[in-house]
């Protein structure tokens, strides 16, 4: 089992690092534009680029938040329950997240196809809008994997086969 799970975990982590690199790119492009404006050389289409980097980056890091359990919750009541009930509640919450993400993927894929069909483009650089949806679909799909990885019990994760 762990030979399957480890590469998936690595994929989620590498995607997250790529997402943060996309944020850094957004920051550098913006700073470049701020400096460029002072010397009469602004970066063309900076808003389109920043939106692409941030949206792409966001959907690359969201699976990591599922994998590491970074999503905020309130444990006060749950922690007063017996351990078995706590595990069951966390498992149900995990399954609900997976179901929600699966539905999200289905309907986002439909919207992606519509955007592709209509050929909408961004305002400044004319980037096809469906390009923005590619990291989004990847991120939703990877979030399903990450949420599933997060609810697999630890002993099962360490089984070699």
């Amino acid at each position, binding site marked *: 089992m762990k030979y399957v799970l480890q590469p998936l975990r690595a994929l989620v*982590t590498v995607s*997250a*690092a790529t*997402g*943060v690199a996309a*944020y*850094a790119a*957004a*920051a*550098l492009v*913006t*700073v470049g*534009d*701020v400096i460029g404006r002072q010397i009469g050389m602004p970066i063309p289409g900076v*808003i389109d680029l*920043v*939106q692409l980097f*941030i*949206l792409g*980056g*966001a*959907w690359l*890091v*969201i*699976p*990591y*938040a*599922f994998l*590491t359990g*970074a*999503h*905020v*919750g*309130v*444990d*006060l*009541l*749950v922690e007063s329950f017996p351990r078995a009930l*706590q595990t069951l*509640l*966390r498992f149900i*919450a995990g399954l*609900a*997240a997976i179901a*929600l993400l699966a*539905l*999200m993927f*289905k*309907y*986002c894929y*439909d*919207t992606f196809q519509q955007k592709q069909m209509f050929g909408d483009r961004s305002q400044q650089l004319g980037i096809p809008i469906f390009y*923005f*949806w590619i990291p*989004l679909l990847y991120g*939703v799909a990877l979030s399903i994997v990450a949420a599933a990885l997060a609810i697999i019990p630890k002993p099962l994760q360490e089984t070699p086969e």
Partner: protein
Amino acid sequence: MTPAIMGFIGFGASLFLIAFGFPVAVAMALVGVVGFWLLNGWAGAGFILGSSPFEAIFPYSLSVVPLFVMMGVFAARAGLSRSLFDMVNSFLGHIRGGLAVTAVGACALFGAICGSSLATVATMGRVAIPEMEKHGYDGSLSSASIAAGGTLGVLIPPSILLVIYGILTQTSIGQLFIGAIVPGIIGAVLYGVAIIVRVRMKPELAPPAAKAGWTKRLASLRRVWGVLLLFSLVIGGIYIGWFSPTEAAAVGAVGAFVLALISGELSWSTLWESVRETAGLSGMIFFILIGASLFNYFLETTGLPSALIAGIESSGMGPTMALILILLFYIVLGCFMDAMSMILLTVPFMAPVAISLGFDMVWFGILVVTVAEIGLITPPIGMNLFVVQATQPGLTQRMVVRGILPFIIADIIRLAILVAVPALTLWLPAMMF
């Protein structure tokens, strides 16, 4: 059943799911989708599921969120907390309780470049608590000073919570940032007063320390030039009109990275840790924004905000009484929920009420974030109480909670001042640009 009642039930259902361990984002999204489905049919629910994951993240104004998160993470890794603590200590350390006042002051300054309360508490706690321990300070005073001081990071700009409030209510993020400066300073001063009063009443809590000379003071000032420059550039840039908040966030993120590089604290391993922390924090925030977007679609359909406005109007309650009730509601909710979730869950229906009551939305935003701050140090869910405890192995939860009451009183006094004198918040934004 009327849609407005369904809205109330939906709000209650979200709280129920959150109480039973569902992540806040998932609870809000599930209730939003199911509620919208019940009111508008499955096609409508499919539409919001297929658009929210894009629409909730796409706006350009949202770019400030991950960039300020990056700025905060790099600032926390740059070892700036020690220099800030030493600088404030050289000026205030000699008065009785001065090290605790120093810790609050350093937290306020660190919050000015960090924007995250938890990061401020974690970073400053590791520096200041051992120092106070070394000087014989009582554990309850030292830990509570850090837990309370950390809340200033939520309000003092740049603040992630203010960004989220601004996006939800279409209020200028720049004006919110500038409006938060005076309330943040008042908060720091009142915390200082709370410490001094407590130490006057119980001198054994904090033994006196030696006074630093001007040579030491000037030397410590020189070591914090980077922090002062970064804050002046980011917030001053917004105030003067050089940058939009997004541009200021980008400059801040790059600047904090450069400061971390110059400080020599940024090894490959700390860089990797920073990347992971940025990914976890921003991923959590973005998904919660998606959950809030789905929940808001549902709330708008139910007409709950209009029902609340009609209820307040028919009750004959004046704006001040309504505001007090709203703030009490937030204080109680803040005891059980974290600040960001509370704002995302409630602002969509509280903002229309505030507008109908004629409140200035910058002022209302600062008040909401101030009460959210109180929630960070109020048991049983005060996140800062847990974080400060985690920074030092010897600290117990009881010890931290024992020392927190004077700071909660200081917060209530600050809230009362801000409610009574809106000009304290609105004066600086009115002079912007």
